[in-house]
């Protein structure tokens, strides 16, 4: 296992390093220096020059890159001039809200996928099978900006049972916070749940065809025990990898979901910084989401290897 981790982690770091260079190069080398944007349309060259100097944009590029990375690692990312707050504070606030949303969505996705996947793999009923296929096809295909609007129309506009958007912290009352959380979390969870359910169903169907399951049935073990003790643990490993990829993608999905439900997270922050043309902040946020994606993928690969010894031996 250690040997596998020793191979997997450095390659993740290489990808992260290359991605950071790509982000820096693309966002820093484009025409229209951030200083020009910050100074405003009527600024004189002296103001632009002083802002350029203040931001360190007159330093050699490798040095700028090093300063940028050091800032991110130490949390001293400087001030967002346009949004008027330290970047670390802005990101911290957004991150906790987005984490709340994504963790809830992942939890929901896992529960939905377990129910749908197990039903899909084990049911003999045609009606249930059709329902499962319809659910996975539709939730996978329909983009979040459609499902989000549909959820608002049904539960907020039609039935008046949940708020159409906004956010309340859990400190101000868990029930209120939960009411705000439900719709965005469901919206974000649906596509991930569909993918997970499909993979779990396929993987479980393969396992259920194995000889040892037949032996277990022949021994007269109860069906539930066969499923929980023998089939599911062997169906999980591949699904874990898919979970990692889905979790990483959720950050992209969060941009849309947060926009629909006015959820004050990282997605809203990145759009705000885009609109106000605060490209230094955009750069930080893009790197952050790429980092989360790579970390999640690496963690799930390691988890997969821990669950499935064959993988560790592969070269």
């Amino acid at each position: 296992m250690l040997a596998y981790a020793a191979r997997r982690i450095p390659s993740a770091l290489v990808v992260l390093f290359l991605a950071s260079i790509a982000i820096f190069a693309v966002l820093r080398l484009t025409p229209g220096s951030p200083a020009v944007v910050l100074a405003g349309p009527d600024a004189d060259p002296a103001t632009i020059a002083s802002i350029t100097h203040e931001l360190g944009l007159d330093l050699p590029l490798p040095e700028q890159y090093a300063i940028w990375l050091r800032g991110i690692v130490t949390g001293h990312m400087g001030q967002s001039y346009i949004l008027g707050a330290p970047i670390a504070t802005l990101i911290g606030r957004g991150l906790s809200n987005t984490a709340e949303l994504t963790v809830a969505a992942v939890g929901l996705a896992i529960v939905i996928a377990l129910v749908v996947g197990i039903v899909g793999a084990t049911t003999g009923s045609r009606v249930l099978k059709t329902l499962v296929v319809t659910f996975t096809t539709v939730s996978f295909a329909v983009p979040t900006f459609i499902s989000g609007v549909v959820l608002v129309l049904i539960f907020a506009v039609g039935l008046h049972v949940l708020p159409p958007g906004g956010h309340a912290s859990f400190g101000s009352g868990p029930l209120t916070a939960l009411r705000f959380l439900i719709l965005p979390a469901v919206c974000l969870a649906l596509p991930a749940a569909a993918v997970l359910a499909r993979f779990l169903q396929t993987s479980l169907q393969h396992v259920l065809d194995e000889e040892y399951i037949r032996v277990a049935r022949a021994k007269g073990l109860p069906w539930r025990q066969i499923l929980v003790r023998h089939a599911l643990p062997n169906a999980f490993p591949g699904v874990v990898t898919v979970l990692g990829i889905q979790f990483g993608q959720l950050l992209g999905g969060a941009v849309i979901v947060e926009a629909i439900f006015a959820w004050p997270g990282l997605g809203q922050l990145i759009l705000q910084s885009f609109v106000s043309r605060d490209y230094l902040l955009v750069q930080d946020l893009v790197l952050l989401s790429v980092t989360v994606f790579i970390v999640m993928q690496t963690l799930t690969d390691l988890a997969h290897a821990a669950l499935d010894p064959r993988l560790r031996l592969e070269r």
Partner: protein
Amino acid sequence: MRLGAVFVALIVLAGIVAPLIARQDPLFQTAGASLLPLSAAHPLGTDDLGRDLLSRVLYGIRVDVIVSVIGVPISAVIGTLLGLAGPSSRYTDIAIQRGFDVILAFPILILGIAIASVTNAGLPAIVATVVIANVPIFGRLARTAFLQQRERDYVVAAEAIGAGTGRILFRHILPNSVDPLIVQLALSLATAVFVEGGMSFVGVGIRVPAPSLGNILNESLPYLASNPNFALGPMVVFAMLVLGLNLIADGLNARLSRR
């Protein structure tokens, strides 16, 4: 699969003949006609600025057709060439694979926002996002297929009779590796529609007043409670397009794997 093809064909056709069936200029604002419900004069109603929603939706479809028709084939060609070229040498293979890894580490909308910041949004940013996001997907599929086919007897035979690398790649290996790429084409078209919708929806894609399905949907958000018909057009079209393309991909997949 047939249902999917019908959905997609209907919508693409509607987009193509938009100038013939749209009753108004999609940018024309009728004074005093804002937020009208569905009617004979305005089959989808009007938006907050009194523009005919059917016309805006029809012209919005064209954006998605353009993004898909330009972006997806370009990414398929570049991706396939890179995927086939990679294994020719160890170092190009590693370089190309790492490049793919880096691109795939970007959640697609985040990639879109980064590209839009650089190119200042609009149609080129959306097309660039579609191309960049899809290249590694086609590349990996082509590479896997190439590695599987390379060991086959017919390739060894072609080499033995002295066929050149180009001939072996394009006359022998590519036609036998094309199945997964075709399925991916349908999925990538769905992704292209998603990218346009998502980017325009959050304001980094097609900018108003030009109509796109994503930005019409975004403009409808404040009026969901009072005028739900505002959101109706883009929602139905998006759902039909994306579902249709996914059904086509599923159908192709089933048909090709049976072969």
